[in-house]
């Protein structure tokens, strides 16, 4: 365990958390073993409990858990309704009345016998999807989303700013809706329906428009969008490179994750796509003249955390243990394969290796807190 300055409380580089989480999600995509999936959820829970901050986004994880539950429920309900029959050896739990489908809609069966095996299979399938969702949720809870956007390459900077502004404006919009609704109560008259909506929507929209104009003026006068030396051709080349690169990446990732696709769609497509996008970003970034205030450092803990996620994914893909995708025919309790368990536990190291989060801002302000009546500077 490294001691010394790197153990001081600080925020881990957001990219490290994202690599870690995406690595875990990739690993999860490889298995339907419910025991392994629950183990991943436990690892996520442990890391979040030990390394999250007090910030509002850090409390979002529970919503991802709920989403996972909903995913499982939908999966199971669909499987029940669109039952695809049961094998003779299956344990039939109950039988739904069959709805006859028109002949042009053949192949889809509504109702019929519902077996325990089918339900279990759909539940684990849902659990896998839900766990992947939770991995992304963990990254959101652990990494400050605004700081994560700041590491976007220069070429995508404008996109990041748009997202940040949208995130800031949303609460202001809610506040302005509340204010106008309260004000509308001062004017009696029609209370319901479209007209009432209009009475609230128009002042709110006018307010929002005015606010965004003022924000745009402020950003303009503070130097946002200083173009540097971009020419029209260089912008076009950048765009073309980025789009083909991203398409390649998408196709490649799909190829990697779906074993039935031809081989050239997998790793080669990812590599080519990655290269093209990197080139596009580098070319686009060259014209940007901008610096970053207090950039997050990338040190040993970042390597360990990100490496844990990547290693987990690699080990699960390398492993061909049958325990990774147990079948429920015949019904049997799934086994715990050794290598995947070790791989997932490796990812749990992140909860120990990552430096502890910084204490919340409020407690760092001097103890004698007088936010409203501060001293007038001489």
């Amino acid at each position: 365990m490294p001691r010394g300055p790197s153990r001081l409380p600080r925020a881990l580089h957001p990219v490290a958390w994202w690599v870690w989480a995406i690595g875990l999600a990739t690993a999860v995509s490889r298995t339907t073993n419910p025991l392994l999936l629950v183990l991943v959820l436990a690892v996520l829970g442990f890391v979040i409990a030990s390394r999250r901050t007090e910030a509002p986004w850090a409390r979002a994880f529970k919503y991802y858990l709920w989403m996972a539950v909903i995913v499982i429920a939908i999966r199971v309900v669909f499987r029940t309704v669109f039952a695809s029959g049961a094998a003779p050896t299956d344990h039939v739990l109950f039988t739904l009345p069959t709805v006859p489908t028109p002949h042009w809609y053949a192949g889809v069966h509504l109702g019929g016998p519902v077996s325990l095996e089918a339900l279990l299979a759909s539940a684990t399938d849902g659990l896998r999807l839900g766990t992947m969702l939770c991995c992304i949720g963990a990254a959101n809870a652990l990494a400050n989303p605004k700081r994560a956007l700041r590491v976007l390459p220069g070429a995508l900077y404008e996109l990041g700013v748009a997202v940040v502004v949208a995130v800031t404006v949303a609460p202001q919009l809610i506040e302005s809706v509340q204010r106008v609704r309260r004000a509308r109560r001062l004017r009696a008259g029609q209370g319901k329906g479209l007209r009432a909506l209009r009475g609230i929507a128009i002042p709110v929209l006018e307010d929002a428009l005015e606010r965004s104009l003022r924000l745009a003026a402020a950003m303009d006068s503070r130097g946002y969008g200083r173009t540097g030396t971009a020419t029209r051709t260089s912008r076009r080349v950048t765009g073309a490179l980025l789009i083909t690169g991203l398409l390649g990446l998408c196709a490649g990732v799909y190829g990697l994750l779906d074993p039935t696709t031809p081989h050239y769609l997998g790793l080669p497509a990812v590599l080519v796509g990655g290269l093209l996008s990197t080139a596009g970003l580098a070319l686009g970034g060259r014209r940007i003249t901008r610096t970053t205030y207090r950039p997050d450092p990338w040190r040993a803990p970042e390597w360990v955390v990100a490496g844990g996620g990547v290693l987990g994914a690699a080990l699960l893909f390398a492993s061909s243990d049958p325990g990774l995708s147990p079948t429920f025919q015949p019904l049997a309790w799934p086994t715990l394969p050794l290598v995947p368990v070790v791989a997932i536990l490796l990812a749990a190291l992140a909860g120990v290796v990552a430096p502890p989060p910084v204490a919340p801002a409020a407690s760092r302000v001097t103890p004698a807190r007088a936010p409203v009546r501060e001293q007038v500077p001489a």
Partner: protein
Amino acid sequence: MIEFDRVTITYPDATGPVLRDVNLRVDEGELCLVVGRTGTGKSTLLGAINGLVPHFTGGTLVGAVRIDGRSTAAHPPRELADLVGVVGQDPLAGFVTDTVEEELAYGMEQLAVPPTVMRKRVEETLDLLGLAELRHKALHELSGGQQQRVAIGAVLTAHPRVLVLDEPTSALDPTAAEEVLAAITRLVHDLGVTVVLAEHRLERVVQYADRVVHLPGDGTVTDGPPDTMFATSSVAPPVVELGRLAGWAPLPLSVRDARRRAGRLREVISARAVPTLRPSGPGAAAPLLRAKGISVAYGPVVAVREVSLDLHACEVVALMGRNGSGKSSLLWALQGSGPRAGGTVAVGPDRADPRDEGRAEGRRLVGLVPQTPADLLYLPSVAAELAQADAESGPGPRSARDLLDRLVPGIPDDLHPRDLSEGQRLALVLAVQLRAAPGVVLLDEPTRGLDYPAKEALRRIVDGLVAEGRSVVVSTHDVEFVAAAADRVIVLAEGEVVADGPTADVIVASPAFAPQVAKILAPLPYLTVAQVAAALGEAR
């Protein structure tokens, strides 16, 4: 440093140019105060300095504006960001990031300042503006004065040579305004920054100005040293008005100068009886509104704590106190539309509580004009708003149009409410609320953004309302307005009433709330220039 060379600015669809043939030179290190009535082109002049006019706003600019030799024709605002810093009226609207430290760094990031330099400048600016303790705070948690100082700091970190401030203190209470102005003067004195400042409440800033730019309203611009400019300007703070009245030359611009000159004036008028501040009403009968133990709480935060007060007919009450002291919450609770955690309100002879009477009946008892009057307006024209007010208020003695014409005559029917001036919009909303003929009228910060003539018009409107037997409550930070318009002052602090009494008794005693005339003529209990004029008239 700033050079306007025969500048004419015309907006599309306007009948004539806003600014006509303006020649202006502001030298390095000057604090230049831009004065003029609302709508004379102050904001246009300020916007032209960094090229927001016409690059961002549209319109045409003939002539040349040069900042440190750089012409705004060739450089859009973003290319001038290293030279000109702009701070607007509402700091929150201009914030791009969400914490103090990141906001300070934002401008420098755009200018590609090296990270080490950025780090150093952020620390320096935090100290310079007294923001060090707030560095990790979220911007929306700060008080108004703190936000405005962050906004100034955020443009200062880019080390601009020119700082443009458009009404930086208009939303602030007197103490927070002092704070911001102290920061600005320190910049001028210590760093040699050239500052161009527009401000309605001249009494706050006039003493710091090196040069005054006056916009009389016909598109022309005149400039000169403050004492000669204010001898004739169309707007002037009370200290200057008093100086004009007493015939002092050169005109004193600060309370300190005026006080040293005022010895003779004090002698002359001390022999006279102090003229009454305002004609007194028919005397207090039974209270029109009686509130007992009003409390308002937002979760664990207590905004108003067990406030009891009586409002009488024919009485103007000013509600004062720093930002966040519970003024708005109290007004909303009295009206019944806002939350109320405890207490009772009894209005009129029936002792009805507007909260329990339903909306339509409630506004017949107590009318409230909120801080942003525009929140009440949603129809496309003045006429439609007035017709809607007539429809929703039912039969009444006077139509809304009639009421509006009595408040501010001559607002055209077909104008969009957004296109009205602040004062006109306030009058429109007031007319809408008065249409229900409430006995008690509450105005939440109506003086915000009003110039001296508009405030004088508001004072007359308020006088008219109480003359009809109403009771009016005005929450405001504007001490000069209170001195001229209020019979009684209630001061709130942390949701509790800390002072309640006749205007003269409450505000003269307070160092933050005393109007300029009171400071100059203390210990004589004079509050307004009009009072002094009356006393002098008697003496002659």
